[in-house]
């Protein structure tokens, strides 16, 4: 029992010391990225950084858009983030004082329709709202084709959507639906919906069969189709779906302004956007990339879009959320 000689203890201690990773203390050009994007997307950007900007080290904090923006707001006195990537303008618009206007050299490649007039943010990709359907969990029901099909009470408790006050994905989908369906039908839809706390829970819940249908963005849902999970399908409703941009913003008084600008440039670079399309199925905001050439996704021209006004969505945010809060849900 007591044969633990001093020599042995010393060599143990030595081994411990040598295993300390000293390299973590050295930091070349560090930028801090607060992101709502999933790990596939983050990984695509980090891989792209190794190619395009090898000196740039990116620290990543993930979370839902509301949590991250609130955190940036709380840290405003001593900002800890350099770049926020990404959210829809309807959510970004509520925090305009947090961003540093910046026009990237890449902005010329982005469709002018998507550009913010004051360069407060830059469009990073285009998002399309879809129904993510788990066909194994339909249990004899027909796959819905239109939003209106979801009003049927048979779907009660079987459709999942994230909390619109916490994630911009859900806000875009639900606000759009409230415009498309009108108050009465929207209330009927709400009675069937179950609300999860974040977007990734929606994807997991449908993929693992906890729910039949999830309301989410094409890019996140398509990852399961691309990965080969056969029972998952994407429905682009024939009564029109909602399209929005996701945008990134440079944070005002970020700790590493130069690295922050380099990170924005990196995120908008053509190679990064192609990588994001291939790896994370993000529809690029740049007009010089042919979507169908890189991923098995329909062209935007082939999708029926129900037009919504982003500015109106920002203006009516509070009112919508308070109505939403009082609507009975499917739980």
């Amino acid at each position, binding site marked *: *029992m*007591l044969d*633990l000689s001093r020599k*042995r*203890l010393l060599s143990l201690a030595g081994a*411990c010391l040598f*295993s*300390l*990773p000293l*390299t*973590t203390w050295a930091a070349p050009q*560090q930028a*801090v*990225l*607060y992101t709502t994007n*999933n*790990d*596939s997307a983050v*990984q695509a950007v*980090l*891989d792209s950084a190794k190619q395009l900007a090898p000196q740039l080290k990116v*620290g*990543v*904090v*993930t*979370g839902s858009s509301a*949590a991250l923006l*609130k*955190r940036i*707001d*709380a*840290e405003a006195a001593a900002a*800890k*983030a350099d770049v926020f990537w990404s959210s829809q303008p309807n959510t970004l618009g509520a925090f305009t004082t947090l961003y540093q206007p910046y026009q990237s050299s890449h902005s010329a490649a982005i469709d002018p329709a998507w550009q913010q007039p004051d360069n407060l943010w830059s469009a990073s990709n285009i998002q399309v709202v879809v129904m993510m359907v*788990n066909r*194994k*969990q339909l249990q004899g029901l027909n796959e819905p084709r239109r939003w209106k099909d979801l009003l049927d009470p048979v779907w009660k408790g079987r459709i999942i959507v994230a909390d619109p006050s*916490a994630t911009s994905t859900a806000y875009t989908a639900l606000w759009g639906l409230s415009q498309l369906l009108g108050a009465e039908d929207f209330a009927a839809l709400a009675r069937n919906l179950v609300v999860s*706390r974040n977007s*990734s*829970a929606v*994807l*997991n819940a449908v*993929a*693992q*069969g*906890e729910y039949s249908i999830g309301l989410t963005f094409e890019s996140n849902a398509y*990852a*399961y189709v*691309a*990965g*080969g*999970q056969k029972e998952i399908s994407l429905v682009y409703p024939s009564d029109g779906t909602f399209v929005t941009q996701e945008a990134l913003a440079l944070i005002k008084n970020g700790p590493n302004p130069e690295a922050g600008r380099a990170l924005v440039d990196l995120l908008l670079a053509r190679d990064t956007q192609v990588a994001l399309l291939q790896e994370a199925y993000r529809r690029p905001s740049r007009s010089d990339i042919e979507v169908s050439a890189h991923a098995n996704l329909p062209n935007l021209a082939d999708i029926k879009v129900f037009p919504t006004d982003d500015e109106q969505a920002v203006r009516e945010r509070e009112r919508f959320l308070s109505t939403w809060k009082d609507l009975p849900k499917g*739980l």
Partner: protein
Amino acid sequence: MKRSFLPSIWTLLSLLALALLAVFLLWPLLNLLGTSLALSGDGQSGWAQLIDDPKYLRALGNTLLLGAAVTLCASVLGVSLAYVTARFDFPGKPWVAILPLCTLVVPEVIVSQTWLMILGNNGVLTLWLDQHLRLRLPSFYGWPGLVLVMSLVYYTYIYLGTLAAIRGFDVQLEEAAQSLGTAPGHARLQVMLPLIMPAVLASALLVFTLVVGNFAIATLLGGRVQLLSVLTYLSFISEMGTNPALQSSLASVSIAIVAGVLFLQRYLVGRKRYELVQGRSAPSRKLRGVPGLLLGAAIGGFILLSSLPLLTVLVSAFTESRGPVMQWGSFSLQNLSRVLLRSPEPILNTLLYGCIATLISLVLSVLISYLVIKKKNLLTPLIDYIAMLPMAMSGTVLGIALVMTFNTGWLALSGSAAIMVLVFVIRRFPFGVRSASSTLYNIPNSIEEASISLGVAPLRSFIKVVLPLMAPAIAAAAVLTWTTIVAELSASLVVYSAGRETITIQVFRLIETGLQGQAAAYGLILVLMTLVPVLFCSLVLRIKVF
């Protein structure tokens, strides 16, 4: 002999220990309780918000119910397994020894994920039963999943506690009872049960507190069942940067529950005292033939069930994945190479913070237990009490208390590596104190006194005489502390900032986004980081860790 009027080295060290505990433990805790009572900006205190919304009261009820259910199931499993292994020999018995390892080294997030893969709505078994037997299982999310997975994770604590008690039980007492005319079964119940009861009760209450504080399993499997730990974390997330009123009230509730349980334990265990003078433990009876085989098969099945998560980690880590979808049956090194070559930061962070925190924890726990047991003074009972406080705080609660206190002010640690280390040390050093204390009780004071009376200074005597005697216990405590530190999730998840992710945080994030393959690769590395020291300690140094 001339005595100086300077305070002795031990008094100074007591003051130092007390100061450290006061700043890093007592202050955050009081700050948390204080914040919960203070009024927030809109004139509503956290308690008012808590009582207003029936959700929180329901969550409190659910948490207590879950704690009771899991404690009951885990006790039945743990006690029967311990009894059977201590009293019988059956084919395959040596394998039972690996059980604690199987369940304790795998991160809880991965355990939950494994059971979802088997019994979730898309699970292998669920689909098979549905297709072949037309049997539709109830949803695994919610009560079924919570109770099953937590029981399978936590029975180990009861098994280990009960096993030690049964082994320490003096079989002559049972024989005496029998020779006095009591029937064998009855004798066992009347004599053995009261003697092992304190151990069972102590480990059962430990399990109860662990269930109340559990975050990882609760958040992944809870489904629509609201639980206190999950709501506390969510209120922390949503109150980030605003008034932390609600989270501190919720945290206070969970502290109150655990404190109540610890008080109950002291009361129950303290009431009945049995001391075994010299024990001869019962020989284990050989079971041959059908009973032996049946028992062996039952236990074997149970071991397989317990080690399923470990097997899943192993298989998933080497399975190719395309985005969130696993390509079962095609193997590759893609996950491991991605994790090791492209993003090794969580691994390096875990090693760095884990090593530093283990060292600090060890020094602190040896010092505190030595002061409390061998150098009693006015301060040491206070130190003893404060040092046990982290036991009453779940990880989420501790994390919130530390973030709240060290966010700004003269000691702003938030966002630094120091707060990660701090959170690990505070959360885990009580384990070290307990383990060091049990050894110190067995070291007679006379040895050290002899050294001092021969003219060796007190501190030097401690280092030269007591420490070497404690070395095996310290080594065991080091491994145990290390193991529990690298597996820590709930507290570090609250305090971490960009670039300071540990393996468990990264696994949690990956599982949440559905990237199982990479999560398993990190999980495998974590398993290795725990297993290697444990095996080194038990096989090379021949020190019992568990």
